[in-house]
């Protein structure tokens, strides 16, 4: 499945298809995608950079091996998600009750933008495990089984996390189940 991470511009695939890429080449091509993933997980630029740099710093000493795994993108994506989870746990961020977001976002760009902004903030306010599952499912477009592999939980748990996350988002947005 093509994921958000693999959506690159023309030419960025050069050198990555049939041979083990060197670290700089791979980061130049895939780094922006990793940062976008980290940004959707962390919700701000500083933490996104922190998470991706941490993952890549761990990957660098092992790059000779990592660059030869079957799916380098998936492997490093897993490292980024792990780094995000570790970072989040390390600082023990308090989870914001999603309901508190309702009607709190004021935006000058009209109702549509306001709704989009509210939905984004509501995603960021989800409990960490739900937010990760939702991001991997709807941003990375991964299958439930792939998310289960990546996060180390059973597929049923992944489905439950995504379902609860979506239900919470619907509640914030004032939408009924379809």
């Amino acid at each position, binding site marked *: 499945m093509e994921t*958000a991470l693999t959506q690159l511009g023309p030419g960025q695939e050069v050198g990555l298809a049939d041979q*083990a890429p060197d*670290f*700089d080449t791979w*980061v*130049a091509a895939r*780094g*922006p995608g*990793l*940062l*976008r993933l*980290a*940004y*959707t997980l962390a919700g701000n*630029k500083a933490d*996104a*950079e922190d998470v*991706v*740099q*941490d*993952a*890549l*710093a*761990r*990957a*660098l*000493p*092992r790059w*000779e*091996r*990592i660059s*030869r*795994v*079957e799916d380098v993108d998936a*492997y490093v994506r*897993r*490292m980024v998600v*792990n780094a995000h*989870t*570790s970072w989040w*746990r*390390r600082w023990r961020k308090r989870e914001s009750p999603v309901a508190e977001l309702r009607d709190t976002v004021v935006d000058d760009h009209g109702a549509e933008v306001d709704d*989009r902004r509210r*939905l*984004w903030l509501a*995603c960021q306010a989800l409990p960490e495990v739900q937010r990760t599952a*939702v*991001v991997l499912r*709807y*941003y990375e*477009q991964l299958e439930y089984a792939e998310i289960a*592999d*990546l996060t*180390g939980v059973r597929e049923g748990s992944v489905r439950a996390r995504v379902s609860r996350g*979506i239900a919470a*988002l*619907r509640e914030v*947005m004032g*939408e009924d189940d*379809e």
Partner: protein
Amino acid sequence: MSDFENRVAEVLRSESAAAPDGLGLADAARGRARARRRTRVAAVGVGAVVAIAIPAAVVALGGGDDPGRTPVADDPSTTKPVDKFPGRWETWHNLSVRVPTDWQYGALTTWCVGEDSPEEFNVFREGGVVESIACSPQSSYGLMFQAIDMKDTDEPFDWPVVQQTGDAWPAHTYVGAHGEDGVLVEVAGPDRQQVLDILATVSTFGPVDPNGCSAIDDGGPGMAGAGEVPVCRYDGKGRLVQSERLTGDDAAAAVEAVRATPQEDGGNLCANVETEYVVMGVEGDRVEVQYAGNSNCADRGVFIEGVDHVLTADVLYWALSPGWTGSVGPGVPLPSALRSYDPAA
């Protein structure tokens, strides 16, 4: 997907455009990697390490010019994995294999320096302690993990299970092997079918091995069910050397040991070093146990989700799996006894 789910996907994609652009990302990661590096110190060995002396096994059929060779076996089963016997999973790098529950740990030459018989079964990993011996037979039964030179394009291969003769092995020993991805798993025993059954379980894995450990340290805590603790030992390159899954009372005791270790100030990291370390998954937290570093550096300790805690004997007791024969830095509080493997547990 529903309309609402499509909206979620669209919002996540559009908002992701605000992410940093990634300029200088590789250099930034490189700088951070330098800061993470450790100081290599003269290790205090717990045993004398000598060159590995694995007895050569007859691996090819045919020829007929070797009167000591008895080609009786055929190819190992290609059905993998199978689970025909009670056992546990052993891993080295990215190959896992199931071995019978009563197999112990150590070099296949260990019997010679103790009071054991050459009929004992051991699991041995390249890099472990091998005593210098001059016994006959040189080797007992068991399983060996070894690194072999394979190109990325090389296909996995099997050595047929062949009965060995001569002084290297106990009489009527069958030896076979499976090679894949730079690792050779060699199995020796008196029961040909058992050797075949064990070799049939050799497999690569992903993303984690049957004990919940990744082949290359991915920065995570490993995977485990409720009440379980994966114990993953990595070499300095981050390659998995040994894995284990603690359960029941053992897991509870390991969690208690980790939670009891007090936090300490980080201090300064030292210069570059790559030493082995252990990652334990404790209630979802990554617990990195660094025991080879210099005592004057902050790179020794128990890092719970990156926060530095005191390295204690209790934590080391659980971090060092049975069969560990590595080395620790000076002053490391090794427990009075290392864990040994109890097949009855």
